[in-house]
C-alpha cells in the first residue's frame, strides 16, 4: 500500500515552529517567518518525547545515511526524497594538518555526498520530503549552484516540477549539472541576493515550495545531520573546533544545534566546541561583522570572488552565525582568491580530496586562524568540506600545469625525468 505523505498526521515529536527573534510559537506550515516581527522561524521539537526513544545503539543499527537521525528531523512519516543522502566520511587529515599546523585535524567530506556531491543534498532531502507532505507539486530555489544541482536532481527522482533561479554568471558546470535533470533553469541578470528577492516574490505569487525560502525552516534542519555524523564518527563526542564555510550562514549554527541535541538526549557530553566561520574576502559580510564587532552584518552589494557558492552578500543567518561564533569563543576570517586556489590544490595534494572553491576557503581560513593563534596546534579541529571540485574546475585551471606531451616512446618519457621537468606536480607541502 502506498501512503500519501500529505495525509499523515503531524509528528508527535514536532512541537511546532518558533520565531528565532521573539520566541512565539506558530503552527507547522509553509510560512517561514513570524508574522509579528518577520523573524525567521525554526522547527521546535518535544525533546522530552524524543529522549526516551533514542540511543547510540539505535542510531548505529540503522543504515549509514542521514535518516538514521530521523527522530531529530521534522517529517511526519518516513522520508520520500533523498533516501541515500549523508553518511559521508570523516577523514583523518594528518598530511594537511602538518601543512597548516594542526596536529589533530579531521575533514568532514561532504564533497562526496549523494547524489549531487555537496552538503546541500542533506537540506534538500528534508525540504522536498516536507514538500511532499504539504502536497506541493512545484518546487524551486534561488541558488549559487550546489543547491540548484541538488533540488533539480532530487525533484526529478520523485517527479516534482522544479524552477531553479541562478545568477547568470554561475559556473557552466553548475548550470549543466542542473539542466540535465530536466529542471526549468532561469539565469537571472543579477547577484544571488537579487535572485533570492525575486524568488521570495515568486513564492508569494504562486504558492510554490522554494526550499531556501518558504521551506527554509525544514531545509535548514537537514544540516544538523552533518553535526550528528561528526559526533558519532569521533566516537560520540564533539571536537574542540569546527571550521565551516559561510554563505547564508545556516550550516555553522545547525552543526551546533546538532551537537546540542545529542547532548540534551544524553548521547554525548555537553559540547565545549568553538565555531569558526570562513568566507572569501570578495564577499565577507559575516566575517566582517565578527572582526569589526558589529551586531548586524553590512550587506555586500556586488560580491567579487571566484568562490561563487559563498557569494551571498546579504546572508539570511548572518546575525545568528556571528552571534554563535562570538559566544562560542570562535572567530571568523576571510581570504583572497589567490589563497582559495592555492588551498584547493593543497587539500587535493595532501589528502586526495578535490573540493570546490568553498573548500579552498575553509582550508585557507583554518591556516590563517592557526597563524593568528586563534586555533591552537594541539586542538582537535574538524574542517567542513561542503562541495566537490569537479564543479568548479575553471577556478584552478590557470594555476595547474598542463600535462607534458610526448610520443609513445620510452626515451621521450625518460627525457622528461632527466630534463628536470617532472610531469607530476610537486605536492609535498612546505612546512611552516
Amino acid at each position: 500500500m502506498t501512503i500519501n505523505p500529505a495525509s499523515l498526521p503531524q509528528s508527535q515529536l514536532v512541537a511546532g515552529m518558533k520565531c528565532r527573534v521573539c520566541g512565539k510559537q506558530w503552527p507547522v506550515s509553509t510560512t517561514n517567518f513570524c508574522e509579528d516581527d518577520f523573524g525567521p522561524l525554526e522547527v521546535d521539537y518535544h525533546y522530552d518525547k524524543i529522549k526516551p526513544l533514542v540511543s547510540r545503539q539505535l542510531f548505529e543499527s540503522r543504515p549509514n545515511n542521514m535518516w538514521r537521525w530521523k527522530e531529530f528531523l521534522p517529517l511526519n512519516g518516513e522520508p520520500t526524497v533523498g533516501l541515500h543522502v549523508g553518511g559521508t566520511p570523516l577523514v583523518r587529515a594528518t598530511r594537511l594538518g602538518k601543512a597548516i599546523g594542526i596536529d589533530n585535524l579531521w575533514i568532514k567530506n561532504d564533497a562526496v555526498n549523494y547524489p549531487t556531491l555537496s552538503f546541500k543534498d542533506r537540506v534538500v532531502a528534508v525540504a522536498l520530503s516536507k514538500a511532499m507532505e504539504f502536497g506541493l507539486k512545484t518546487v524551486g530555489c534561488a541558488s549559487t549552484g550546489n543547491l540548484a544541482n541538488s533540488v533539480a536532481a532530487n525533484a526529478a527522482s520523485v517527479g516534482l516540477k522544479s524552477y531553479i533561479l541562478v545568477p547568470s554568471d554561475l559556473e557552466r558546470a553548475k548550470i549543466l549539472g542542473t539542466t540535465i535533470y530536466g529542471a526549468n533553469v532561469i539565469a537571472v541578470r543579477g547577484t544571488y541576493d537579487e535572485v533570492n528577492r525575486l524568488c521570495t516574490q515568486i513564492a508569494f505569487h504562486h504558492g510554490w515550495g522554494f526550499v531556501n525560502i518558504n521551506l527554509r525552516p525544514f531545509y535548514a534542519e537537514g544540516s544538523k545531520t552533518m553535526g550528528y555524523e561528526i559526533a558519532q564518527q569521533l566516537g560520540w563526542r564533539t571536537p574542540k573546533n569546527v571550521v565551516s564555510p559561510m554563505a547564508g550562514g545556516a550550516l555553522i549554527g545547525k552543526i551546533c544545534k546538532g551537537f546540542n541535541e545529542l547532548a540534551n538526549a544524553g548521547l554525548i557530553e555537553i559540547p565545549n566546541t568553538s565555531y569558526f566561520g570562513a568566507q572569501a574576502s570578495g564577499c565577507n559580510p559575516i566575517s566582517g561583522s565578527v572582526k569589526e564587532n558589529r551586531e548586524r552584518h553590512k550587506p555586500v552589494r556586488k560580491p567579487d570572488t571566484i568562490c561563487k557558492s559563498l557569494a551571498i552578500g546579504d546572508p539570511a543567518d548572518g546575525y545568528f552565525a556571528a552571534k554563535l561564533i562570538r559566544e562560542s569563543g570562535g572567530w571568523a576570517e576571510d581570504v583572497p582568491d589567490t589563497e582559495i586556489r592555492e588551498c584547493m590544490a593543497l587539500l587535493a595534494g595532501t589528502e586526495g580530496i578535490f573540493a570546490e572553491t568553498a573548500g579552498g576557503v575553509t582550508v585557507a581560513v583554518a591556516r590563517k586562524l592557526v597563524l593568528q593563534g586563534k586555533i591552537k596546534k594541539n586542538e582537535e579541529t574538524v574542517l567542513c568540506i561542503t562541495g566537490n571540485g569537479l564543479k568548479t574546475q575553471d577556478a584552478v585551471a590557470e594555476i595547474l600545469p598542463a600535462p607534458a606531451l610526448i610520443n609513445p616512446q620510452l626515451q621521450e618519457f625518460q627525457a622528461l625525468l632527466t630534463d628536470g621537468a617532472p610531469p607530476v606536480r610537486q605536492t609535498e607541502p612546505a612546512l611552516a
Partner: protein
Amino acid sequence: MAILVHIPPPLRPYAEGTDKISLAPAEAATISQALKALVAKHPGLNDRMYTNGQLRPFVNVYLNNEDVRFLDGEFNAPLKDGDDVAIIPAVGGG
C-alpha cells in the same frame, strides 16, 4: 503617476487586504516618509514593521528593485513620481 508602495501577502491582513497603496510625491518625499505614510493609512502595520520607532531588522525594503541599504542616503533617499517601493521579509538564503 504616483509612488506605489507594495505590501507583501503576510502584511495584507493588517492593511485591509490591500496589496499596494498609491502615494502622491508630496506625502512621500523620501522612502522613510513613504513607509510612515503607509503606516498612517494602515495603523495595524505599525507593530508589524517597527519596534521602538525603528524598522524591524528582518524587514527589507526595496526601491525599484534595489535594496534600500545600498542607496545613497538609505531610507532618506528621495522618491520621485513613478517609483516603486516594496517591503519583503528578509528570510531566505543559500
